[in-house]
């Protein structure tokens, strides 16, 4: 009997098998035929192993970076990159992360169906990364695996429902409708940008839209993740290698290979690892997300899909570049502050500044023109530099592997859960999650009252204008 149980436990400790089983469920729900179900399930299993292999490549390239940084500046240097850290996390917390991801989706549908927050979070990749982070934090807090999955799924579902709601007031200004929302882990930073842009807006001399500017073309390579990661990491690796010194690099790390070439090759290897991880994530999600979308479309009336940030890029292409640059400058300013303060140093990650900075620029532009785009995206850049720093201790064991989560929401959710866990242990975490759940329902109820009043006011106005005529 115990032998059978051991076999089962063995199986369920394999995250790749858990993810494949979730795929199996997803495909069966979509009533695919036997061949498609088999194909999708096996593809997911293999896709997860591809992802794990990519994580190995990334870790291999990051370790010498950490050592060089330590040698050069005598402090820890960290590059926030979601793919890199998720790859590492999944090696240890993969099963819990996969289950939290899956049940979190169900909670998201349930919340969207029963509250005024009709957002269905369809950016599977970043939702998967959030699930991985929640799994680590609850795991570090000492919960049993079943409790990690239970409370983690609730936290995940709450996050998926409420994160789009945060940006929606500004999103309406961008799209001119209430039909689509942003589903991305940069949302807190993007909403901050909208807020800053609104506050700094001047009634007397409103700032013009970024789209009135004529921008030089030729920055198209910025859209290519593989190229931009390799180039930006190349610059960072070479700078760090120069400061670490050729003698250290060539004797300790590169086995005699020239230190500049070694640094460039490690940076390219890092990009290669991210490429492999992305390929794995793509395969894993391909079978699960369509099922989620199909189910939510049937179950939630008036559902608003929350989608990845590039959906706003087409609304204001100039704001995309302005936002990226302003955010990146924010990241550099933040890094300089850390150098003087003597903390661990967060090196600006170009991908994060591009994705969330660009969206902050578009949102900031819609709320407050050029000035809003610049100031809002700059604030986002500052936020995504300091939040990862604060997140480092929370992530416990994996927090010190030269990488961390990059976008603002990881910082917010991570600090919330991690702070509760440090302050009051498991009980505080459970109380915090339940309190958030109650708060969502109260907010929903309050919204219903406000909407009712708005509708009443609107109809009163209508009758007035009719009588006036």
């Amino acid at each position: 009997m115990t032998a059978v149980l051991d076999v089962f436990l063995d199986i369920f400790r394999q995250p790749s098998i858990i993810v494949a089983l979730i795929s199996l469920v997803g495909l069966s729900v979509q009533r695919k035929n036997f061949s498609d179900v088999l194909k999708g399930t096996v593809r997911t299993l293999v896709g997860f192993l591809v992802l794990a292999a990519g994580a190995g490549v990334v870790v291999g390239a990051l370790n010498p970076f950490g050592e060089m940084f330590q040698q050069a500046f005598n402090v820890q240097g960290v590059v926030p990159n979601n793919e890199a850290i998720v790859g590492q996390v999944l090696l240890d917390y993969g099963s819990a992360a996969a289950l939290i991801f899956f049940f979190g989706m169900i909670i998201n549908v349930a919340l969207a169906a029963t509250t005024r927050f009709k957002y269905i979070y369809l950016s599977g990749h970043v939702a998967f990364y959030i699930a991985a982070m929640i799994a680590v934090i609850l795991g570090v807090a000492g919960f049993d695996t079943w409790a990690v999955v239970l409370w983690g799924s609730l936290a995940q579902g709450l996050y998926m429902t409420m994160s789009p709601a945060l940006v929606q007031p500004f999103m309406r200004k961008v799209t001119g409708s209430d039909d689509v929302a942003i589903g991305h882990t940069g949302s807190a930073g993007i909403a901050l940008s909208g807020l800053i842009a609104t506050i700094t807006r001047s009634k007397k001399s409103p700032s013009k839209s970024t789209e009135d500017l004529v921008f030089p073309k030729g920055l198209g390579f910025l859209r290519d993740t593989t190229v931009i990661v390799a180039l930006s990491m190349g610059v960072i690796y070479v700078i760090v290698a120069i400061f670490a010194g050729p003698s250290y690099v060539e004797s300790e790390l590169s086995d005699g290979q020239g230190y500049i070439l070694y640094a460039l090759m490690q940076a390219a290897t890092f990009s290669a690892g991210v490429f492999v991880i992305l390929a794995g994530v793509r395969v894993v999600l391909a079978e699960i997300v369509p099922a989620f979308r199909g189910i939510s479309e049937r179950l939630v009336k008036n559902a608003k899909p929350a989608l990845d940030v590039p959906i706003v890029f087409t609304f204001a292409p100039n704001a995309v570049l302005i936002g990226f640059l302003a955010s990146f400058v924010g990241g550099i300013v933040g890094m300089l502050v850390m150098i003087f303060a003597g903390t661990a140093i967060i090196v600006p990650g170009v991908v994060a500044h591009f994705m969330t900075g660009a969206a902050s620029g578009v949102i900031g532009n819609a709320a407050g023109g050029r000035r809003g785009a610049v100031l809002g995206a700059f604030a986002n850049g500052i936020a995504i530099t300091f939040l990862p720093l604060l997140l480092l201790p929370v992530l416990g064991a994996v927090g010190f592997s030269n990488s961390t989560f990059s976008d603002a929401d990881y910082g917010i959710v991570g600090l919330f859960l991690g702070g509760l866990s440090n302050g009051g242990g498991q009980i505080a975490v459970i109380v915090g999650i339940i309190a958030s759940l109650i708060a969502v329902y109260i907010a929903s109820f309050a919204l219903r009252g406000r909407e009712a009043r708005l509708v009443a006011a609107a109809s009163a106005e209508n009758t007035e204008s009719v009588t006036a005529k």
Partner: protein
Amino acid sequence: MKFLAVCSSGLGSSFMIHMNIDKVLKELGVTGVDVDHTDVGAVARGDADAFFVGRDLEEATNTLDNVVVLNSIIDLGELRTKVREQLEAKGIAIPEGDAA
């Protein structure tokens, strides 16, 4: 026949366009078209018969041929028109005709 949706990471937006193309094809009653999504870095000429990208990626994909540029990647109406154009250009019969 293969359609490929492309975005910068090959995860979010392209996947959404991919699912929307599937939806449009189903509406039109067209079968036998392979749809997939990928990232700008991995895509190459000849990977598909038509590539669907957002307006912001027009420049990054100028090495491909038969790129369909979408003004808004969330506009299902625009996608429907452009998918239909592609199908007609490739001589694929649309059974539903104007029913959708």
